[in-house]
Every structure is written in C-alpha cells, then in structure tokens.
C-alpha cells in the first residue's frame, strides 16, 4: 500500500469512528442543546458526518487534502445552523494544509491551528465564551507545544490534547454564554455544558482512537518491512484530522 493510500485509509477510518461516536451520543448532544440551544445538534452532526462518509467512500481520490476538504464541504451543506459553517467551513479551509506534504506531524499542527483560527474568525468567540473554542483552544495549543517544545510523539501529543479538550469542556459548564444562541439566555446558560465543545471533544477522542489503531498497525507493518521509523509520525498525525 502506498503512503497516500494509507492516508486515505486513515481518513476513512477516522471518519467512520467519528460518525459512529456521534451517532451513539446523538441523544446526549441533543439533550445538552435543548437546555441552552435549539435541540438539533445531535441530529445535525450525525446527519452531516453520515453524508460525509458516503461522499468520501465514493471518491476516487487518495489526496488527503481533497478528502478532508470534501468532509468540510459536505458538513457545510448537511449540518446547517452555526455548526455547519463552524465545523464544515473551518475543515474546508484548513484542509489546504495537507495539500503539499499530505498528513505529517508538521502539517497536522498547521491544520489544527488553521482550523482554530477559522473557527474563532468565523464565530467571533474567545476562550470563556462557552463555545467549542473552550475545548479547541487548549487542545490545539497542547498538541503544538507537546510536539514542538516537549518533543513528544504525535500520538502522545494527541492524547494530551484530548485531556486538555476535556478540561475545556468541563470549564464551559459554570460559565455564562457570550456567543451563540445560548448567549440570549444570559445567566440562565450557567450550569449547562456547551454542546459544541462536547461534540468537539467526542471528535477528538475518536481521532485519538483512530490514530492509535493506525499507528499500531503501522508499527507492525514497519517492523515487518524494516522501514525507516520516520514514516510513523505521518500516520499518527492523522489524528488531528478534523
């Protein structure tokens, strides 16, 4: 299997895992959203990712930038509401980071940063606004720092990023919403966990699980083929996929 074929498989696997997870959590996400939003987050996200799965599987294309872009485009049209442009639009533009070198440790950091920038730019939220930015910001910073400063393997970095996202999600509960529909509720939004931050965490957890699956497979394959271990981070980095 060529490297691009492996990347395609990793993208497909990530997408399948994320879709299955969102499907499982659909009712929970909808419950969170009905407390402070319009009660459609679970259904919208599940519908969007299912469709993205179909689209990507039907594509005759191994270029990860194109595959990831298709995920974004599909989410824009299928998810709707604010999550469509935030998730879909940001994945769409950040996918360009994979255009030249595919998915590597470096491009996955670039993807994560571009994604966060776009979400903040589009939604105007900052940390503390009680949105997905509260989960995303510490996750992206932790991922980047773990690789660039602490010299960790991308897989470990991603695990730390997921922990950071989890703390970010917890942080959304006691605070008052400043962005999104929940902000119209003012103080009544206090005490409820943000649905967008929560779905961000679920997606990241599945990216980590996918990266673990792919990496373990890769370790064996590499051992058998006695290839240079530098190939490994490329696969792990896939974890930052969306």
């Amino acid at each position, binding site marked *: 299997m060529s490297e691009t074929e492996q990347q395609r498989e990793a993208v497909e696997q990530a997408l399948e895992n994320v879709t299955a997870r969102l499907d499982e959590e659909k009712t929970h996400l909808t419950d969170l959203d009905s407390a402070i939003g*319009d009660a*459609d987050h679970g259904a919208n996200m599940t519908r969007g990712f299912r469709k993205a799965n179909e689209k990507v599987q039907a594509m005759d294309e191994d270029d990860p930038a194109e595959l990831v872009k298709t995920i974004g485009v599909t989410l*824009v*049209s299928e998810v*709707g*509401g*604010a999550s*469509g*442009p*935030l998730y879909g639009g940001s994945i769409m533009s950040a996918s360009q980071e994979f255009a030249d070198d595919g998915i590597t440790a470096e491009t996955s950091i670039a993807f994560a940063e571009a994604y966060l920038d776009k979400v903040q730019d589009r939604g105007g939220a900052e940390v503390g606004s009680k949105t997905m930015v509260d989960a995303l910001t510490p996750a992206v910073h932790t991922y980047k720092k773990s690789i660039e400063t602490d010299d960790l393997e991308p897989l470990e970095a991603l695990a730390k990023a997921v922990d950071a996202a989890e703390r970010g999600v917890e942080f959304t509960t006691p605070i008052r919403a400043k962005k999104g529909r929940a902000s119209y509720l003012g103080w009544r939004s206090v005490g409820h966990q943000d649905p967008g931050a929560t779905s961000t965490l679920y997606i990241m957890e599945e990216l980590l699980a996918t990266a673990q699956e792919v990496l373990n497979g890769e370790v064996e394959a590499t051992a058998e083929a006695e290839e240079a271990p530098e190939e490994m981070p490329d696969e792990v980095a896939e974890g930052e996929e969306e």
Partner: protein
Amino acid sequence: MIGLVVVSHSARAAEGICEVAGEMAGDARVEPAGGEEDGLGTDAGRIQDAIATADDGDGVVVLVDLGSAVMNTELAIEMADADARIADAPVLEGAVNAGVETTNEKATLDSVVERAEEAREYRKLD
C-alpha cells in the same frame, strides 16, 4: 442593477421581508433565503443560490437576521461567484432602505450597503 438577498432563520420571515422591501425596490431582484431543510435555521447553500439568482452582474447586498445567518452568509459569499456584501443593519428596515437605493440610477454596492446601514439609527417613537 444591484440585487438584494434577505436571510432569516424563518423561510416565511425572509419571504415576508422581501415582500415589504420589494414594494420599494422597483425592478431590483429581491430574493429570500430563509430556513433550512428541517425548519428554522440558515443554510449556506440556500443563500449561495439566492445570491446567484439576485445577481445580474452588478453585485448583491445581503441582509441577515441573527447568529448563524451571519456565518452562513459569509461562507456563501466566499463560495459565490457574485460580488456580494453583508449590510450590518436591522434586517427588515435595512432591506427596505436598500430596496429604495437600488432604484437610484447611480446606485453602487457601497451606496446600497451604506443606505441599508443607515437603518441602524432609526427610532420608532418620537
């Protein structure tokens, strides 16, 4: 001629606002882009289509209601071929003002946006 698009979470609100603004807009194209597939909401694809329909080559001014209407319109403008801009104005009053300005022979994208945004200052009493 500059075209107008009205984006609202409600399809009926968008249509109604177009009806009110259309009365003042002469021959200008005034297109609604309201709601999404399963009811209330906004949809970038729907907005993109409305921009394409409203555009005759001179550009389109878009009036929006709340929250995701702004995000989905920004995204639709990025994807659209037409020269389109959002007017930062109350959606109905801005649409009426914009409608009037489109009938001005010298109307430009800037002048229609500017005229729509004047509606921010409106007082209803006194």
